């Protein structure tokens, strides 16, 4: 019998089948990647743990914590494995861990700032590093000569210079890790950080030169070797830069043609930058310089070429890689320190090194700054100098270099290793811990994180041009002159060569800022809108939080509704026609009432389920509309908004517009209207409730971007009314025009997001007569029945609306009760004029003040469960009605009310009649059929 052939049954020809093997232990094969993944995981988890406590991370830099963690882990490994494992290997460090960090810092380097300060950066990087290494090396040698060191330290001048060269370089990883948390001003940061990046060339050259000198032995060094050393400095630094520029050029050129393969666009950025690093490393040029300049120079073109999504991908991938590299570097630094086999302690050497690097760094900074300040436009003051000296942190580069030393050639390697570890730990932990308090104590100018504004961008460009012009006029070819020349060259040749045609055309910094701001506005508009909806914040004028909210919303609203012709900031609050306000308030009621059923569909409306494509399109659409609207606003005459819409919009919203124009020349029945709408503010209180907020604010915000705008607009109106003291300003005709136009615009914007609420909103503007009573009832019934979907409801409303529009024309001067009475009697009642003094506040307001929002909308949304507040109102009013939710729905009640006037009226019934009574007494001439009807019913 042959066993059945199968992969599970054939373990391989080599292994004698001692029975079929189910599983095989393959640790050897996965060991390396598995360990790598495990360490990354450990480091990342540690990061999470650190950030659990805000207090700790605000005081202790992350790098310190990671080093300490590494020490701890190293101790554990040592205790378990009995020997130190998992050290920071120089090869791993230079080939895998360092490049992401350097690429990240180069790519996201603020290039303008960098080149503005390039003089200072280069000085500190080159002269400063040279100074540091020579002085430190020589001073240590002096210490050794003086016999202060242990005789075991076998080192000559060259050894100490070698050690000085590796210990003196400021480390980009450490500087970045510490300074990112300190937030000193940009100039200071860029100088220290730029120095730490650019000094790599000096460090590499010095290290190599001295290393070869040590290997040769002092006797064999010739004068030509020194010359070679100097020459190799230029070769290494300029060569590294050239490699970087070359690859930046290639990268930009490649991304120009990736239109069809968007998905791998980000890969090119990483690949080419990495290849640049490797190429420079291969020919022993400065790899850090190569990647830095590759990143700095390619960014402009790459960002213009690749898609928005790729940009985001590049950004996040880069940050992730850099951050995890940094984490691993610090953790492994800590772990490497426990390996005592490498250590050889000498107190004098350690203390001497610490003293000298601090001292000479300070001296060097002061001397160089003194010279630089004679040329700098903004001198670096003493405080800056202190921070710069103190911020000279040493890190993993020094450690990796010292590990790379050859023990046979450099006899004192163990001493150097120990000293380097102490120095690195000292600078990262002690200086890292104290630099924040120091910066605070010295009152170093911090960076201000303000949002970029359009004005700033414009003025800066103007400044650039002015300065270039002044240099031209004075006849001096200074910095601005050359920058201007470079920009012209870039615009004419480089950009054309390296950018896509489409990108090049629209390439303009001002325009970019404008575009970004616009998008941001649109998005924040949408987001904030959600708050207006779900939070009760905006409802009460007396609430303190309201002020700030409304301010920002005014700003945004204004921006959104942007008319250039009228910049009245009070436009939102200007007196509008009563109808507008009524529409607005009605809209609120309807919004609150009719919207809810959609929540059943929240999954499909949630942003999480919308494909990102849709989101992007939406952004674009918002932007497009925004732009279009702005242009239209300029074209339109001041008082005739409707007629000047573009054709496309005419087509889209023709129906709606018809409705608007209908309402705008409505019969002059306003004087008789029974509801004084300007006092309708409390309505807003009602439409929000705590539970809604808690359970659905998120989805609502997502769903509902459209309607929100209207809500905001009207809210402003109402608030303005409610607190007349706040808005003292005269209202111009212009303003009112803009206000209404913005209202319309907002509505049109609304139906970008969702069409249905808009329909509702429009319905609110329509009067309803006796003739339409049954129509209304039917629609309402369908809404209340709960069986219909929102889509159906919307359809019903559309149908209803068109019917109304037709009827309206015929109905002429007939006087109709507002739709609100029919749809939502409570709302009307609630919005009855509230007494001015707080003592006489209506109950719902008092209740709201206590933080519990009444909920009015239950009628339309959840017929089964009434809110407590409603019961409360019933109680207060002393009606002996059966609970409203058990009584017949309102339309039935009103029907019954029509027939039998003395039936026990539930609370909602009592409200309109009360309202009606009051209004009648105010305007006895009122002849509204519905009003009189209700009054009779009472």
């Amino acid at each position, binding site marked *: 019998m042959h066993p059945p052939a199968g992969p599970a049954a054939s373990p391989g020809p080599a292994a004698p089948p001692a029975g079929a093997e189910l599983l095989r232990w393959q640790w050897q094969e996965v060991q390396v990647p598995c360990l790598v993944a495990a360490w990354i995981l450990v480091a990342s988890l540690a990061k999470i743990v650190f950030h659990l406590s805000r207090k700790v991370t605000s005081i202790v830099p992350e790098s310190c914590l990671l080093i300490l963690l590494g020490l701890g882990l190293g101790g554990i490994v040592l205790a378990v494995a009995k020997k130190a494992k998992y050290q920071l290997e120089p090869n791993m460090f230079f080939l895998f861990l360092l490049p992401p960090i350097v690429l990240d810092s180069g790519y996201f380097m603020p290039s303008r700032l960098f080149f*503005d300060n390039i003089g200072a950066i280069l000085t500190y990087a080159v002269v400063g590093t040279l100074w540091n290494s020579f002085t430190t090396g020589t001073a240590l040698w002096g210490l050794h000569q003086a016999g202060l060191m242990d005789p075991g330290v076998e080192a000559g001048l060259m050894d100490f210079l070698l050690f000085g060269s590796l210990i003196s370089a400021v480390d980009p990883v450490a500087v970045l890790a510490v300074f990112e948390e300190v937030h000193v001003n940009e100039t200071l940061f860029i100088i220290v950080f730029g120095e730490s990046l650019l000094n790599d060339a000096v460090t590499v050259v010095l290290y190599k030169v001295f290393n070869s000198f040590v290997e040769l032995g002092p006797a064999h060094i010739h004068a030509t070797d020194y010359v070679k050393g100097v020459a190799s400095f230029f070769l290494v630094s300029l060569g590294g830069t050239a490699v970087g520029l070359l690859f930046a050029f290639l990268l930009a050129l490649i991304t120009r043609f990736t239109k069809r393969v968007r998905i791998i666009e980000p890969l090119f950025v990483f690949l080419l930058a990495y290849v640049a690093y490797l190429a420079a490393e291969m020919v022993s040029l400065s790899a850090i310089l190569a990647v830095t300049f590759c990143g700095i120079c390619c960014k402009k073109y790459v960002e213009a070429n690749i898609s928005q999504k790729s940009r985001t991908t590049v950004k996040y991938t880069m940050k992730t890689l850099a951050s995890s590299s940094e984490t691993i570097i610090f953790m492994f630094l800590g772990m490497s320190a426990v390996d005592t086999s490498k250590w050889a302690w000498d107190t004098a050497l350690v203390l001497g090194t610490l003293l000298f690097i601090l001292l000479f760094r300070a001296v060097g900074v002061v001397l160089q700054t003194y010279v630089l*300040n*004679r*040329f700098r*436009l*903004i001198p670096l003051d003493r405080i800056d100098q202190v921070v710069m000296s103190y911020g000279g942190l040493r890190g993993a580069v020094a450690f990796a270099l010292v590990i790379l030393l050859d023990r046979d050639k450099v006899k004192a390697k163990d001493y150097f290793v120990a000293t380097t570890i102490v120095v690195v730990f000292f600078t990262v932990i002690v200086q890292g811990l104290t630099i924040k308090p120091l910066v605070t104590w010295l009152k170093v100018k911090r960076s*201000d994180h303000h949002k970029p*504004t*359009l*004005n*700033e961008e*414009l*003025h*800066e*460009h*103007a*400044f650039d*041009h*002015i*300065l*270039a*012009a*002044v*240099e*031209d*006029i*004075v*006849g*001096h070819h*200074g*910095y601005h*002159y050359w920058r*201007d020349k470079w920009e*012209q060259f870039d*615009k004419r040749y480089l950009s054309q060569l390296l950018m896509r045609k489409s990108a*090049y055309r629209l*390439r*303009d910094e*001002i*325009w970019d800022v*404008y575009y970004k701001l*616009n998008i941001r506005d649109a998005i924040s508009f949408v987001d904030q809108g959600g708050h207006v909806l779900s939070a009760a914040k905006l409802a009460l004028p007396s609430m303190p939080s309201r002020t700030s909210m409304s*301010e920002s919303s005014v*700003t945004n609203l*204004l*921006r959104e509704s*942007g*008319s*250039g*012709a009228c*910049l*009245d*900031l009070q436009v939102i609050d200007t007196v509008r026609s009563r109808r507008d306000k009524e529409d607005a308030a009605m809209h609120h009621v309807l919004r609150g009432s009719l919207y809810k059923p959609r929540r059943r569909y929240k999954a499909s409306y949630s942003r999480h389920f919308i494909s990102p494509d849709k989101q992007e399109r939406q952004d674009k659409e918002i932007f497009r509309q925004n732009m279009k609207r*702005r*242009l239209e606003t*300029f074209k339109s005459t001041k008082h005739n908004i409707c007629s000047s819409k573009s054709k496309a919009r005419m087509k889209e919203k023709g129906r709606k517009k018809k409705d608007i124009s209908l309402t705008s020349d409505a019969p002059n029945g306003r004087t008789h209207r029974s509801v004084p709408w300007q006092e309708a503010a409390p309505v807003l209180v009602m439409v929000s409730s705590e539970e809604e907020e808690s359970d659905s604010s998120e989805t609502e915000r997502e769903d509902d971007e459209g309607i929100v705008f209207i809500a905001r607009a009207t809210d402003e109106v109402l608030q303005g009314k409610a607190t007349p003291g706040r808005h003292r*300003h*005269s209202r*111009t005709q212009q*303003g009112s025009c803009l206000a209404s136009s913005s209202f319309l615009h907002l509505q049109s914007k609304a139906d970008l997001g969702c069409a249905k609420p808009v329909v509702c909103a429009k319905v609110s503007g329509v009067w309803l007569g006796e003739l339409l009573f049954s129509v209304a009832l039917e629609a309402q019934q369908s809404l209340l029945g709960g069986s219909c979907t929102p889509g159906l409801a919307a359809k019903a409303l559309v149908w209803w609306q068109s019917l109304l529009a037709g009827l309206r024309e015929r109905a002429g001067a007939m006087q109709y009760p507002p739709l609100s009475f029919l749809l939502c009697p409570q709302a009307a009642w609630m919005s009855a004029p509230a007494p001015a003094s707080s003592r006489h506040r209506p109950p719902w307001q008092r209740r709201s003040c206590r933080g519990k929002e009444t909920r009015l909308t239950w009628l339309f949304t959840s017929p089964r469960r009434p809110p407590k507040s409603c019961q409360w109102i019933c109680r207060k009013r002393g009606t002996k009605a059966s609970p409203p939710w058990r009584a017949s729905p309102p339309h039935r009640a009103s029907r019954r009310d029509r027939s039998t006037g003395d039936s026990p009226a539930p609370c909602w019934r009592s409200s309109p009649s009360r309202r009606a009574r009051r209004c009648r007494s105010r305007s006895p001439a009122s002849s509204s059929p519905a009003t009189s009807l209700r009054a009779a019913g009472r």
Partner: protein
Amino acid sequence: GRQWQELPPGKRKKGERGSGFTSEQIEHLHRRFRQLSRDQLTIRKENFDSIPDLEFNPIRAKIVHAFFDKRNLRQESSGLADEINFEDFLTIMSYFRPIEMNMDEEQLDRFRKEKLKFLFHMYDSDHDGKITLQEYRNVVEELLSGNPHLEKESARSIADGAMMEAASICGPDQVYEGITFEDFLKMWQGIDIETKMHVRFLNMETIAHCY
């Protein structure tokens, strides 16, 4: 040199005091002035046409304009001068002096204001103390004129957006007609312009004996 003697010593002293330049700087500037004016005592607008590098400057007209703006020349009247003499030239140049180490807060503030005023005057082309929307649009259009692919409409909408922003920064309690200088200052709050309106050339020598 020869040119220096042509500048009367009294004027030289005055120039030093008023503008804060060293005598060497003044000498250099005077040489350049003679060069531009073709050895005349005054410079006219046409003289600026002879500077080739200026040609590509998108807001060149505005900048040249600023040289003849009487407000910048610290004259009482407003309007445009037809020609400026060397003293006026120095006055304009002094707007671009870098800050000095020994300046106190008050001086710095004044210094900053002066520089911003220069910019403001450049924008406010009709001399009414307000940057109106139209003026702003003009500036933005000129700034964007370097890019032929951007339409005028976009320049306009950018200007409108910027104006809107200015209006929102400067408080909602007014009908917004334009940016006044106070608003302009407000807009610049928190942004250090120290780097942005200096010409290094004028700082080549220590300014030891200028005050």
